[in-house]
């Protein structure tokens, strides 16, 4: 099947098998390996990306379901050369160790802050509760997201991002 998916502001047209998972489409067909895969049962969340502005586990979405839709991945999180406050927060607060869960965590965090610029610790824990981290004990992930909230973590206009992304790719 031929599908066209907009990823991080860029349109990609590819022929895919109907059963192909979005996570494999992103990783294997588009080479966007920042999105990871970690389980067979939709439990770990390392595959989290945005589909039309909301986080989804890309292992539970077929690539064909993304046909005509917009996907945002970790590769589209920075604003050009400048890291998103969420990315800065994860660096500043040691919110990652092996880095495997990090892209998914950051995508959820970005969405959370877009909808609640000042989340409590409980809100943050709840927001990432569908995602696992085996390294950090979550403490510094929570702190990283709080850091982002306190350092200009509020949303940037989507159009501005899209524009930047196009320039970058």
């Amino acid at each position, binding site marked *: 099947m031929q599908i066209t998916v907009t990823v991080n502001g860029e349109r990609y047209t590819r022929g895919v*098998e109907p*059963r*192909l998972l979005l996570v*494999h489409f992103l*990783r*294997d067909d588009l*080479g*966007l*390996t*920042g*999105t*990871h*895969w*970690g*389980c*067979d*049962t939709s*439990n*770990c969340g*390392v595959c989290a990306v945005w589909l039309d502005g909301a986080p989804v586990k890309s292992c539970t979405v077929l690539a064909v379901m993304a046909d005509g839709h917009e996907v945002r*991945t*970790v*590769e589209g*999180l*920075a604003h050009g050369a400048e*890291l998103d406050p969420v*990315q*800065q927060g*994860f*660096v*500043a*607060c*040691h919110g*990652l*160790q*092996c*880095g*495997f*869960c*990090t*892209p998914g965590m*950051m995508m959820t965090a970005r969405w959370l802050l877009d909808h609640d610029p000042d989340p409590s*610790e409980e809100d*943050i*824990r*709840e927001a*990432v*509760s*569908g*995602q*696992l*981290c*085996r*390294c*950090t*004990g*979550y*403490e*510094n992930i*929570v702190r990283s997201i709080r850091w982002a909230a306190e350092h200009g973590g509020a949303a940037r206009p989507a159009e501005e991002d899209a524009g930047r992304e196009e320039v970058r790719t």
Partner: protein
Amino acid sequence: MTTTGERPVGFGRMTRKEDARFVRGHGTYVDDVRLPGMLYGAVLRSPLAHARIVSVDTSAAEAHPKVRAVITGETLAGLGLAWMPTLSYDTQAVLATDKVRFQGQEVAFVVAEDRYAARDALELIDVEYDPLPPVVDARRALDPGAPVIRDDKEGRTDNHVFDWEAGDRAATDEVFARADVVVGQDMLYPRVHPAPLETCGTVADMDAVTGKLTVWSTTQAPHAHRTLYAMVAGLPEHKIRVISPDIGGGFGNKVGIYPGYVCAVVGSIVTGKPVKWVEDRSENLMSTSFARDYHMPGEMAASRDGRILGVRVKVLADHGAFNSTAQPTKYPAGFFHIFTGSYDIEAAHCEVTGVYTNKAPGGVAYACSFRVTEAVYLVERMVDVLAAELGTDPAELRMRNLLRPEQFPYRNKTGWEYDSGDYPRALRLAMDLAHYEELRREQAERRERGELMGIGVSFFTEAVGAGPRKHMDILGLGMADGAELRVHPTGKAVLRISVQTQGQGHETTFAQIVAEELGIPPEDIDVVHGDTDQTPFGLGTYGSRSTPVSGAAAALVARKVRERARLVASAMLEVSPDDLEWEKGRWFVTGDPDQGRTMAEIALAAHSTLELPEGVEGHLDASCVYNPPNLTFPFGAYICVADVDAGTGQVKVRRFVAVDDCGTRINPMIVEGQVHGGLADGLGMALMQVIAFDEDGNCLGGSFMDYLLPTAVECPSWELGETVTPSPHHPIGAKGVGESATVGSPAAVVNAVVDALRPLGVRHVDMPLTPAAVWRAARGQPFRSDLAIT
């Protein structure tokens, strides 16, 4: 950007160098490696725990248009590769030929043009099995008439793997005979799995022209893997390159060599193409290195006034179908014999019997420090059982028996020499941070109201940094590690190390070690690791050995460079080397501090035409191998506060205070991160994680739906404290810390829950303390959750 102002030149808080790529999604994990013409492998696994293989028909799979090769045990037998040596001098089937011995065992390997086709082809392989009765319960493994699992081994008539003991039996019996109080508690440390979020995998690329094999692999020990490939496959070692790129967590899961790795190598040889194999989550949980599975009937003897006199245990160790634990050869039960813990105990004796069962092989994994985890859990549970028996507060009983600072270096009764410690100080600090006395008051009030609140204390002594070559080896390879340091003419440096990070942040901390020694900023030091073609030999990262062993090598090689720099500086300044003094980053003339040269100036001069004294070579580069004189012994005191819902059995860990002492802290931010992660692991093991089996040997923990891991919601906000007691024998006084929290925390959680249930007459509950387990224990009907048969 730093969290606390200025970047340090050396030790101190500093953000990680590696994060720049990770937060952009630019890490390179094994599954991110893509080579031209690459094919994909998939493993067919046994659905049965124990069965004879009657036939394997691969014809339909071979006919699949996208399949390039199908490899079976028979194919491998033809190449002499059907069996491989394990790290414990046993053998393990790469692909089964005669029998399958656990559910999930590797039976065939398909190589196809894409992942999905490889999976499709597995469905087309027809294996006929003749089922055999399985051995599931380790306690039945040595029964007369138990099915013999390893009948591949000549003359084998039972499932016995080893017997091992440590300590003094007679002295211990004597102490028990005269003690006022003896308590006993049978406990199980159930089988768990490290479950790093990245599963295991490999990309194997055999270049048919040069004969060079390049393997990108999820390995914590690239050099050991290279040597093993050379031994297994008979390939010349210089023609093997093992690359361990970014690793998505290891925790001991990625120490061993798995059949899938070997199959990918064979697949590449057979097809002439690179072959990628990445296991799925079920394969990871069902077939790769599990941890624990120790049955421990502990006993403790004490005087009426609460002096612990002796401890003994006769452990039954479930090793699964192949003994493939990865631990120093001399110690088949790892470092379990550190089970006297942190106490001044007169006599101790342990026996460990290892048995085969029809379960996945492995045993030493999951941040266990070669089974210090099991040892600490045993002794810390026993101390609480004793406290309950004596009616003494468990923190007070510990305080009374902890080793005193003046006893160090301390030789325990099973032969360990603890290097340094101030244990009472750490426990006191933890109690202060927790407001222990207040918590006890609150608990008394809640108990009045019928609420179940528990306070759990644990104290641990870790043994990390394997190890002295004289005593410690893996398959005959001594556990020393190398380091190489090159200083470029402009004063920038490259450090090459033998260990491999799986998230511990080596690229930052090892640069900080060199920075501390040479006064070069850490940003100017590149750390190269995880590539056998580019780094010196060493045994890798596990057992918290990176800082104690390789960290020492890094410090010593930097000191060598510093001494070379001194000679060059003396030529530059035309003074004797003896007249030079070091301050961070610079040699200067004694008594004339303005007369000096910086490392950058010296580096340039070392590469210049400057005339050097007789016998002094140019350049500053150096290498070294570090053979540790002893292990290092980090320690800590943990306090857990838990509330139990009497109606549902649900446990909520409300607070967790952890005081860790790992000696010198190279980067406190990273140390704290290591502790946070270990605490979550300990909480997970205590409350929810178990790889259970039904009576047919079916694995009941084969997915994240069944094998539960803690999320951000179950974890409290960890409260940390620290004391610093440097290791006297380590060049920078550092001890390992990666596993401390995993070792120390499960007992604190279990002690808290048992403490909460004490008004109900509960003395012990085996992990994991699921709502069902707690609910039943509260009703006097505890059950074993490692087996479905209860």
